[in-house]
């Protein structure tokens, strides 16, 4: 794309917002040769996801997933985080933007601060914690949450006693690093970037506006985000579910859905997309915390439209006894003096019921930030009437201004995986825009030669950190010093006030050189955040970075044994001894590298495959598309319009033309893949016609098919058709007759065993066609028989439009499905009406079936070929449901489109761009380095029993040309499951070898060698 302009394009990208979407975009870009500036208005990155306790539908801990990503972003050589910062102006054009950023003063110098937190302890001023949603307090000098990145405290000027009264400065006295700077004036920086990515996320609806729910008045009414914090083990109640009113454990807990959503009169008209699922999750997790809790969820439509969501709701009902009550609550009243809450609702029978609950959770919706209009103006992008940026379903992450992309909930309400997908998608778009400028602004570290350790005896240096007083006030450092100084192999011991401070790093290097140390043990904090720092330092001193071990005597000792000096010191000594025992056996590890073929193979020539191919080709890579059918286009060939009215056939035609004209794309039609050999970066594929292709990445875009119904007289009567067939009729110009009646049945072949999943597209298809009928002839009748209308996000508008146009919606339940009979030429449909509480019988000219989607029949075969698991419904199972939605455990293979799960066109396009972004991170590298921490395989011990081959989640053991088990170290992640299961002990994981673990066990008890 635009090769001649390449010299003018910048190789850097501005990411505005540090939530999970922004982090994903930043990491993908920085990992593939672009410099990233991340602007974040809070003192820490993390966004909304860090506030969540667990995530649906897997129940994974949210912080456990996001924290390593935050650390990665924080440490990335090519990502600059500008926190407490806002963009004030943007000028220029795609490839060349000039951006002014204003950084508010932090009053703490990040270069000096070690993040020890001593200042916070001393600060006398307590402020309600925003992060904990006002359920507890923080200090005026604070960190947003314990795992904050950057880990530099910030002073909240509005609450600081010094700033308000001119006296205090206790933090300054407490800070041994001298990092407090009350004279900080903030700064303005000018950035020069090639593309801009907007991911500021969304705000939550302020439910206090709806006085009838009593939020802020009745103490036991909390918002869903407050309840997340209540559930969190690190939250205000330490994971105990308590009522704010009296601290009592609640028994009956109610969730009220759609607070602030789907309510055009009082609040926001859109559906917030995530509340049905998070309420279900909260109910499940609450029950897991306390089995006595009886959860009730009051809802309008259960919108469990995502992958495996319906199964999750079924589990909530059947295994956790969560009661789902279809009713809208209009008011909440407190029973005076008790804190209990009275809810009145209309039951299915129409009877009014008063029910008392111990606690009520308001499932608050999502809405754009208050300053959304100003924000959009700064970036010069158009917004719709709700202040969301204008995008098109065909270009879901492109704003009205070229070169400015949007991702995440700001684009429209969405959950974590879709946000992550869009994060990778915008990265893909930015890579395609700036392809040629890749690598022009990034830096790489120059490294000196490593010291040769052959024949050297073990010389360990031990560095014990005080961490200010964090460790030293609980652990007696001198005793640790004494206890380890005479251990075998230890030649040097010292202590440091802050081992991680810049000057300490220099001291450490000097100590290594002067004492000829060849193993280093630092006793300080957790290896999860600090190991890479010390490893870099000893590498600078000429040591292989794996000759290092970190003894965690802070998080796992001083901080949890405060006030128990003697025990804590004893334990700290033990921990350091264990690290020394391991250090004696550490060996330098070589990290090999392999080359990368800068080309991709895309299996499937539908819109998913083509979108990915075009993006990758624009990024500068060769792409082969393998399509088994004679022509490109896939399922989209049968689609004429989107719900929003875009002309799909026109779009498809132009896409196919673009693909066929692209000089870097080669299309193979009527051909399939015969076999693929190799691994990430180095695949070799043979096609059924004998063609051989070499490529570095694989994209599986094998698509899906539409379910062909066997029910409701389909194929028996010519008047029973599918939505797709109706769409075609309408597209061909058919005008519905006045008085003609169309009856549509939803969920045909979906949401019931054995296909217990939502096909996601059918509600919109039905509404799209219903609106089209009504617009062509308002005298035609349309009745939609549905189970739940799932027009999530901004699609809700069209549901409203359909109702306004007079489309009739009648709900049915799966155990009382509509019955269709033939009455001569006409069809007669009988269904139970829950509003009237009686059978409804209607005649229809056309019965339209909303049929679901199924995985493509080739999915299983392809899955077996690439060893990729399918979920129970037959769709490919991604590497991680939340954070790796387009990856697979086997590296270098990505998924996009319906092969992953049913989804709409805009979502397919987003995911396809994401696959291109992810593949771009692999293909842009000259070589891939193999991690040092991998399993080493000894072929001489191996008996090829295949135990490892069968359990490895990354597919790294394989059967070689000789028919024996061999091990591909490039694919290995070093988890060591192979080592655990191998009956021959032919596997040992570097730095976690059996002898090292056994030595640590020995050191954990009294079996220590003294020199």
């Amino acid at each position, binding site marked *: 794309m635009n090769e001649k302009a390449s010299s003018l394009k910048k190789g850097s990208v501005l990411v505005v917002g540090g939530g999970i979407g922004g982090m994903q975009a930043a990491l993908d870009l920085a990992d593939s040769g672009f410099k990233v500036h991340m602007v974040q208005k809070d003192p820490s990155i993390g966004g909304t996801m860090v506030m969540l306790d667990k995530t649906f539908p897997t129940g994974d801990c949210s912080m456990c997933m996001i924290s390593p990503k935050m650390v990665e972003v924080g440490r990335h050589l090519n990502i600059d985080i500008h926190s407490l910062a806002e963009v004030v102006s943007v000028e220029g054009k795609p490839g060349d933007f000039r951006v002014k950023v204003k950084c508010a003063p932090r009053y703490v110098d990040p270069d000096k601060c070690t993040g020890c937190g001593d200042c916070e302890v001393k600060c006398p001023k307590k402020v309600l914690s925003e992060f904990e949603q006002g359920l507890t307090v923080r200090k005026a000098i604070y960190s947003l949450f314990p795992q904050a990145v950057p880990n530099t405290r910030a002073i909240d000027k509005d609450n600081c006693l010094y700033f308000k009264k001119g006296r205090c400065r206790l933090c300054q006295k407490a800070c041994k690093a001298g990092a407090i700077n009350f004279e900080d004036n903030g700064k303005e920086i000018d950035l020069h970037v090639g593309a801009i990515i907007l991911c500021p996320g969304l705000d939550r609806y302020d439910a206090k506006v709806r006085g009838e729910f009593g939020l802020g008045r009745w103490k036991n009414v909390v918002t869903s985000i407050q309840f997340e914090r209540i559930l969190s083990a690190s939250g205000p109640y330490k994971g105990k579910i308590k009522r704010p009113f009296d601290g009592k454990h609640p028994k009956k807990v109610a969730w009220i859905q759609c607070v602030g959503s789907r309510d055009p009169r009082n609040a926001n008209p859109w559906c917030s997309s995530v509340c049905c699922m998070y309420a279900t999750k909260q109910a499940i997790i609450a029950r897991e915390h306390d089995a006595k809790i009886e959860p009730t969820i009051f809802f309008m439509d259960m919108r469990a439209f995502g992958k495996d969501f319906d199964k999750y709701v079924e589990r909530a009902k059947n295994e956790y006894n969560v009661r789902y009550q279809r009713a809208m609550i209009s008011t909440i009243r407190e029973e005076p003096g008790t804190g209990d809450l009275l809810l009145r609702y209309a039951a299915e029978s129409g009877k009014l019921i008063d029910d008392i609950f111990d606690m009520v959770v308001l499932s608050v919706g999502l809405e754009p930030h208050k300053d959304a209009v100003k924000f959009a103006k700064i970036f010069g992008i158009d917004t719709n009437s709700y202040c969301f940026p204008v995008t098109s379903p065909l270009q879901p992450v492109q704003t009205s201004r070229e070169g400015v992309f949007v991702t995440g909930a700001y684009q429209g309400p969405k959950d974590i995986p879709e946000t992550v997908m869009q994060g990778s998608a915008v990265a893909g778009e930015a890579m395609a825009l700036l392809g040629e400028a890749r690598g022009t602004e990034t830096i790489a570290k120059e490294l000196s030669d490593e010291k040769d350790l052959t024949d050297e005896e073990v010389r360990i240096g031990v560095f014990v950190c005080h961490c200010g007083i964090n460790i030293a006030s609980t652990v007696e450092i001198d005793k640790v010093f004494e206890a380890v100084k005479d251990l075998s192999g230890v030649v040097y011991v010292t202590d440091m006030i802050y081992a991680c401070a810049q000057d300490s790093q220099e001291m450490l290097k000097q100590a290594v050189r002067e004492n000829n140390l060849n193993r280093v043990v630092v006793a300080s904090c957790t290896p999860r955040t600090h190991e890479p720092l010390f490893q870099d330092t000893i590498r600078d001193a000429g040591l292989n970075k794996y000759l290092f071990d970190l003894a965690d005597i802070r998080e796992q000792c001083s901080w949890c044994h405060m006030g128990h000096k003697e025990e804590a010191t004893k334990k700290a000594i033990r921990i350091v001894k264990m690290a020394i025992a391991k250090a004696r056996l550490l060996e330098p590890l070589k990290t090999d590298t392999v080359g990368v073929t800068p080309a991709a193979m895309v299996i499937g020539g539908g819109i998913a495959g083509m979108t990915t191919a075009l993006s990758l080709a624009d990024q500068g890579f060769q792409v082969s598309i393998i399509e088994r059918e004679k022509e490109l286009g896939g399922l989209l060939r049968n689609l004429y319009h989107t719900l929003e009215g875009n002309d799909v056939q026109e779009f498809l035609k132009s896409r196919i033309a673009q693909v066929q004209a692209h000089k870097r794309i080669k299309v193979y039609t009527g051909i399939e893949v015969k076999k693929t050999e190799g691994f990430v970066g180095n695949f070799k594929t043979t096609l059924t016609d004998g063609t051989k292709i070499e490529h570095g990445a694989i994209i599986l875009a094998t698509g899906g098919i539409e379910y062909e119904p066997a029910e409701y007289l389909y194929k028996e009567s010519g008047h029973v058709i599918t939505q797709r067939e109706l769409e075609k009729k309408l597209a061909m110009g058919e005008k519905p007759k006045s008085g003609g009646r169309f009856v549509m049945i939803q969920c045909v072949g979906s949401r019931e065993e054995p296909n217990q999943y939502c096909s996601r597209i059918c509600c919109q298809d039905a509404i799209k066609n219903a609106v089209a009928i009504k617009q062509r002839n308002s005298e035609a009748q349309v009745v939609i028989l549905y189970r739940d209308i799932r027009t999530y996000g901004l699609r809700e508008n069209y549901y409203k439009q359909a109702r306004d146009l007079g489309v009739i919606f009648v709900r049915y339940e799966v155990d009382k499905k509509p019955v269709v009979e033939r009455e001569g030429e006409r069809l007669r449909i009988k269904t139970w009406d829950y509003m009237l509480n009686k059978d409804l019988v209607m005649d229809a000219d056309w019965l339209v079936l909303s049929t679901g989607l199924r995985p493509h029949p080739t999915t299983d075969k392809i899955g077996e070929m690439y060893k990729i698991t399918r979920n129970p419904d037959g769709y490919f199972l991604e590497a991680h449901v939340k954070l790796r939605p387009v990856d697979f455990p086997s590296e270098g293979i990505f998924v996009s489109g319906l092969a992953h799960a049913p989804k709409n066109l805009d979502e397919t396009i987003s995911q396809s761009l994401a696959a291109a972004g992810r593949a771009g991170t692999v293909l842009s590298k000259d070589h891939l380095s193999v991690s040092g921490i991998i399993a080493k395989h000894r072929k001489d011990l191996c*008996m090829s029993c*295949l*135990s490892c081959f069968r359990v490895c989640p990354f597919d790294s053991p394989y059967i070689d040309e000789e028919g024996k088990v061999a091990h591909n170290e490039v694919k290995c992640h070093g988890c060591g499951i192979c080592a655990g299961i191998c*009956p021959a*002990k032919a596997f040992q994981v570097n730095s976690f070898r059996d002898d090292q673990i056994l030595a640590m066990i020995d050191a954990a008890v009294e079996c220590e060698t003294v020199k």
Partner: protein
Amino acid sequence: MIVGEQKPFEEIWEMIKSFRKVLVFGCNTCVAICHAGGGKEAEILASLIRMKAIQEGIGMEVKHAAIERHCEPEFFDPMMEDIKTNDVVLSTACGVGVNFLAERIGDIPVFPGINTQFFGAVPKAGIFVELCAGCGNCILHLTGGICPIARCAKSLMNGPCGGTNKGKCEISQDVDCGWYLIVERMKKLGALEKLYEIQPLRNWSTATYGGPRRVVLEHIKDIEGQ
């Protein structure tokens, strides 16, 4: 491959508790693959025995070792002196290994640590199934490659019997009827009519009913003069 299963620990303990120097001796071929008696399992078993001895207040020295195969002398002969320093050898090899070592070790007892089960295949990780009975007179060409001796509970040559039940055997609903499998397989091969041929009474002398078996290669017969 030969499939075995470790004996219950109590049974092993009863065997060896009166000895003071115990060697747990693993075999790194078949029984290692089925996670029953390789070097790794020998090490685990030795550790368990040591702890049991401490609990029982018995002074016992327990070592462990393993070799490639217990069924060939060259592998353990070099270690024989070391092995003989023990009071007992608990072999986790298959029965073949136990026999073979016992024959050669002299007056030290060799006890079995595992129950040797059958010749098996590994259809999936951790699952071992019997497919051949080693009867010494193979008729798999007549039965579509499915052995009626090993896979029919009655080892019928002209099945199935009246106990076949919707593809399952009368002994258990979890056991496939071998003859049902044979019929289905022969259908697929288009060779069902072959099953109408009645198989004559079988000569079982090639199986263990004819006494211990022995195979000697032709060229060896010449050398050994047998």
